[in-house]
Each structure stands twice: as C-alpha cells, then as structure tokens.
C-alpha cells in the first residue's frame, strides 16, 4: 500500500505526465528536447522562487515579497554592474546577501511579534517594489561580457534542445532544496512547525529560530531568481515579475504541498512549475487560444488540488491544523 503522504505528489506527477503526453500526442514537435529545454529555461526563475516558497508554505506561512524581490534584485544588479562597474559575480553575492538579510528581517518580525506572515510580507512587497523606482524608473539593459556569456552558455541535449545556464542554476537550486528539506534537522523542523506549531514547541524544536531561517531562505531563493531573471533578460525593469509571488504559490500547491503547511515535497514544486509551463506551451502550440487560458486552466487545477488535499487530511485523526 502506498503511503498516503505521497498521494498529492503522485497526483502532481500524473497531471504532469498527462499534459506532456497530450502535447506529444497532439503536436509532433512537442516530443523534441527543444521544448523541454525551453520549459526549463523559461520557468527557471519561477521554479527557483517556488522552491523557497515551498519552505515558507511548509512552515505554515506565506511570502508575498518574492515578486518584488526579483524586480529589486534586477534593478540593483543593473545599477551595480552598469552604474558602478562592479563585476556581475560580486553583484550576485551582494544581491544574495541582501535577499538573506531582508528575508531574515521579515522572519524576525513574524517570529518575535507573532504577526501573520501575510501582512508582514505584504509590507515587504510594497517596500521592495517602491525601492525599485527609487533606484531606476525605466527599463535598462545590463551589458557585460559575463552576462552575455551566461546567456549564450548551453549544454546540448540529444535532439535539437539544450540546457541553458538558467536551467542549470534552477536544477541545482531544486537539488539543494530537496537536501535542505529532507536531510537536515532544519528541514524536518519546518515540517513539524507547519504540522502543529504548539506541539513542535513542546517537542523541543527552536520554533522562532526556524521561522526566521525559513524567511531568510525564501529571501535567498527569490534573490537568486532575480539574478537568473536579470541575466536571462539581460535587462532590469522596476515593474518586472509583478504577480510572480502568486504564480510561485500556485506552483507550490499544484506541486502537492499542503497550503496549511506540514506536508509536501520540494520535488513536487519542481513539477508544479513545469506543469504551469507545459500549459503555457500547449496554448502557444494551439495558436488559436488566448494566452489568458493559462490562468483559467491553472485556476481549475488549483481548485482540484486544494480539494484533494482536504480529502487526504480529513482522514487524519487528531489533526488540529485546519480542523473545523
């Protein structure tokens, strides 16, 4: 018998396989690795963000600041590289440190003052978006040899496809997310806190410290997503990545993570992101459908997954989280 904790993940894999299978069945070109390579590249920044978001949601929280973080890091990178002539790699380090610090700051307020993460990260979202315009009002290019090299780097795949640098960074981020979540005490403590915070405290878990670390991690991952996004587009725009926080949350939930926390898999989030990309690609292949159909399909999927999760957790006895 299969462990019921894997049901949402299996559902995610099934949906992913179905959609991809449909694409291959319907359009001959869909089976080419070219499509796969593009899927990984185009959704790299979204999936990286969603990996960080997975930890936040597993802990029972939410982080709305990630979209603004992506835009802010882009603007910051452009200013550092083009304005101050700093090497892009140094700018990357500065961006990641900033992401970590800002995330930890939000986590500190959430943990110490016991405030809803929704409202704190909403404040963070406005703050960072505003800060973008403080630095730069327009779309600016980021020009540097390293950036062009990053954009041009590709590992060929069998067939016509290739693996871009963005995709590689994303895959590494997913791998490290899996290790963090499943092979460290920090990761297991995140699950415990999301499952039942009060019990976690009584079991001797450092709840406050873990929560701060969760938002710090989300800050780092979204800053990394910002870096990848900036390199990928080779430009910075203060209004970039608006609403990406919601896409990331959708990817996490479609990936099988319980929105109330405590259950889920980083690997699921990867497939959740891919599913969203596949839907987009399918609609592009069709050609006659409006791109807004992506949202309609994703909305429908979300409804389905949330109900599925409810059915699974309802069979649990003694579930306090979400119990009516």
């Amino acid at each position, binding site marked *: 018998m299969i462990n*019921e904790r894997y049901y949402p993940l299996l559902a995610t894999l099934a949906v992913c396989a179905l959609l991809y299978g449909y694409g291959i069945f319907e359009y001959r070109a869909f089976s080419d690795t070219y499509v796969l390579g593009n899927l990984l590249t185009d959704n790299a920044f979204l999936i990286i963000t969603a990996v960080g978001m997975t930890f936040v949601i597993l802990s029972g929280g939410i982080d709305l600041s990630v979209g603004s973080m992506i835009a802010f890091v882009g603007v910051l990178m452009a200013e550092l590289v083009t304005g101050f002539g700093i090497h892009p790699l140094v700018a990357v380090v500065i961006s990641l440190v900033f992401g970590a610090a800002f995330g930890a700051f939000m986590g500190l307020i959430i943990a110490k003052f016991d405030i809803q993460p929704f409202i704190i990260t909403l404040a963070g979202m406005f703050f960072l978006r505003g800060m973008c315009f403080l630095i730069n009002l327009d779309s600016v290019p980021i020009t540097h040899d390293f950036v062009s090299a990053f954009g041009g780097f590709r590992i060929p795949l069998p067939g016509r496809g290739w693996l871009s640098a963005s995709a590689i960074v994303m895959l590494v981020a997913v791998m490290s997310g899996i290790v963090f979540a499943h092979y*460290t005490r920090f990761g297991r403590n995140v699950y415990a806190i999301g*499952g039942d915070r009060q*019990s976690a405290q009584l079991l001797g878990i450092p709840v406050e410290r873990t929560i701060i670390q969760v938002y710090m991690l989300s800050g780092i991952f979204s800053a990394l997503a910002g870096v990848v996004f900036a390199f990928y587009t080779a430009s910075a725009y203060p209004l970039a990545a608006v609403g990406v926080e919601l896409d990331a949350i959708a990817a996490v939930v479609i990936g099988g993570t319980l929105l109330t926390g405590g*259950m889920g898999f980083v690997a699921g989030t990867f497939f959740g992101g891919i599913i969203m990309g596949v839907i987009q690609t399918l609609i592009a292949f069709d050609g006659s459908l409006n791109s807004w159909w992506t949202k309609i399909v994703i909305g429908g999927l979300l409804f389905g997954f949330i109900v599925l999760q409810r059915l699974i957790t309802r069979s*649990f*006895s*003694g*579930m306090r*989280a979400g119990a009516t």
Partner: protein
Amino acid sequence: MADMAQPVLSARGVGKFFPGVKALQDVDFALMAGEIHALLGENGAGKSTLIKVITGVHARDAGSVQLDGVEIHPGHPGEAQHLGISTVFQEVNLVPTLSVAENLMLERQTRKFGLISWKKTEADAREALKILGLDIDINRALGSYSVAIQQLVAIARAVALDARVLILDEPTASLDADEIKTLFRTMRALKDKGLGIIFVTHFLDQVYEITDRITVLRNGRLVGTFETANLPQIDLINHMLGRELAEISAHRHHARDGVVDRGNHIRIKNLGKKRVLNPVTLNLSGGEIVGLAGLLGSGRTELAELVFGAQRADSGLVFLDDKPVMLRSPRQAIRAGFGLCPEDRKQDGIVPELGVRENIALALQGRRGWLRPIPRAEQDKFADDMIAALGIATPDREKPVGQLSGGNQQKVILARWLVSKPVFLILDEPTRGIDVGAHADIIKLIRDLCDEGLALLVASSELEEIVAFADRVAVLRDRELATELSGADITQNNIIEAIAR
C-alpha cells in the same frame, strides 16, 4: 512493607501560591520505582498544579522535590525530561502530518556529515517502539492512526530518553475500551521495567484496575496516600469529595407544598450521544430544581450541553409541553426558551471585552434575531434592573465584564438569561470559583428563580449545595443516569452511595 525502598520521586511540603489562591499547600508525595500511582481529586484539587510543579511548568513556592534523592529545580518541561521525568498529556502533543518515525526522532535524528541518516534514524525509531511492543508502519503519517496509537507513540517518545518517571495526565479520556486495554498493557510492561508511573484520571474503575497506590488531593491539600487494594471505592469517593458518611442531610424543607406543576413541562427522552453520554430520560416541571450529581467525567456537563444543543445528540428528543424541540444549535434552544450558564464561564460564557449591559443583552438579542435591535433605552433599563436585582457589584453598566470578580461574572450570565425570560435554565457548576458571600447570593437566586416558575437543572460537584436546593437529584455515573433521588431520600449519603454504586 515494600516501602523500605527509596522512592524514585518524592515531594515534601510542596506549596504553590497564585495571587489570592493557595493552589497547593504542604503536599507530600512519593513515587516508587515499578509502581503505578494514581493522583486523584476533583477539579481544582491541585492535581495539575502538582504535576506542573514537578515538571517545571511552575516554580514551587515551598517544599522540595527530589529525584533519586537529589533535589531538582527544573525550569521547563524539557529540562525535567532531560532529568528523566517525562509527561504525556491528554491531548497528543505530536505532529499529525509527520511520520511516526519522525515524531519519535525529531531533534534526535542520527546525522552523518551534517545530513540525516534515515536508515539509522528509522532503526532507532523501531527500537523505541519495540519497548512498547507496538508493531506499526513507522513511515505512515501519525495522524492516520487512532488517537490511542498516537498516545502510545507519545509514550514511546517519552520513555525513549531513559525516563525514570512517566506522568500520564488523563491519557484515557478520549480512548475506547480496547484502546484503554492496549494502553494498560503498555503501562504494566513499563512498570515491570522499573519505571515509576503517575496516572492522573477521573475514571475510578481504571484506578482500581491498574494502580498500586492512590494519592488523593482536595482543595490543594493532601488527603492521604493509600494502598489501592485496601481502599474501598466508597471511602475513596468520600476522600475526594470530602464528606463523611455520618454527616446529616440538610435538605431544604421550606414550605413549598402544593406549588408543584405551575410552569412548563420539560421532558428529556433518551437523549444521548455515542461516546459522550448514554441515553438519559429525565422530566422537569416549572418551579422545580433538579440537581445533577456525579463525579467529574460522569457526564454532567455533557448532558447540559446536549440539552442546550451545544453538542448535537444522536439519539433522543427533548419535549417542551409535549412538543418536540429542535436542538441542533444553541440558537434553536434559546429560541425555545432554554438557557445555559456553562461551567467554564471565562471561555464559553462571558464576552470579557464587552460591558455589563452588552453581555446582558446578548441572549435576548439572540432570541429576537439580529434584524430587530433592542432599543438602547430598553437595554439600559434591563441592565440597571438586573444590576440592582442581582446585586452585581460594578461601578456602572458599561464596565467590561472581564474586569469583574468571578461571582459578579456569574451573576451577569444569570442576568443575561433572566432578561430573555427563559422557561428552562441549565446551570453548570454555578458556584465554582466564587467567594463565600457571592456563593450564598447565587444559591438564594436559584431558589427565587425556581419560585417564579422556572424549571432549573443544576449540575454541581458540591454535594452540600445540591442537597440544599434540589427537589430531585439525578445521579450520573460513567456517562449514564445511575439513579434519581427525591424528597427525603436526598442526602449526601445516598448520593455518594449512588455514585459508588
């Protein structure tokens, strides 16, 4: 006597004082290794305070606690656990979404090069469960198992850390008979391994089934420690309730002849709920006070909540003047003219932030429906009338109820029901936590209400009180109606005998 052995845990002269309350006074307690020791007492006797002092939730204000002859001062439950005192609470404090293995090993996982080695960690978890003889799939989510299994896993986690003392705080409250059997088998196995077990419960048959000795507390003081085998149940109940059999009944014999059957009739017919209360049949008429007696957990509060619709009954009906009353929610009960003053008024009764006037207006407003607000002038009049009639000590009618004393809060709740002119009022422990003066006031109020033709059902653990005001007494035992007493039969002796059977 085997008492020559040194106790594994001993407390001497322990005292704990909260502002205005002596929760524990001069309590001695000794737990031997390889012993199951019941800690008994009614609500407020000091059981939980003693456990909290032992486990470091509260710092003690007097006396000493020794583990293996060494004085200990744990600052929090985690520290007590490191010393070897583990506690399992009634509510399972584990994470339902995590696997059984993870719940056992959280913060104790074996690591290699900083990463968790799941192979070793799962082997450790299996080892921990083996002690209890529990054969379950440790990779399934804890929440997919029954509460009993979860309870056992909590015990496994508790004893995995070389525990010397295991405290079980009402572990059986939510278990069924088979689950209790499993738990008891485990307790005996642990006892044979030399653990000292403190067992807190209010099910006396379980006490006789499993424990070696019993310590009884009452009002924060030690009544005594007894060998279970040598203590008849009736003596135990006397120790817990603090009444001597010889005490003479003080049944009210004031002139009430011929005043029966003035008001409405309430018939409770086969009202029950699975796992909560076996079907109860009880009749009341206006102008009558029926007392509900029974030990904690006998179903007193549950009956009150079922009649009021706060819990949904799955069998039986309540009739008001031969018409069945729909009782699917308190709202419907209130519409029918029922009222309930709950046991825990802080949590279920008052709205502490609202003023006296608003609290009083709540039930009447609920009965009228929110579309017909009560004019402010009318509310003021109700509030002023009630403050005067019940003698509520408050500077004005807008003072937040949370700032009043317990007795006055209780009066506000009574006032709330009185303005809504109920036909049937249920009072659950109306005098708990109230000082002596207010206590007398409330008893007098209960009598006056009854003389006005109201039907009253009053649950109380104070036998003296029940004997003093009840026309009839329904005695509950083990979640069913044991017997009904009326007239001259209402004595403390008879009630205690009915409780003890």
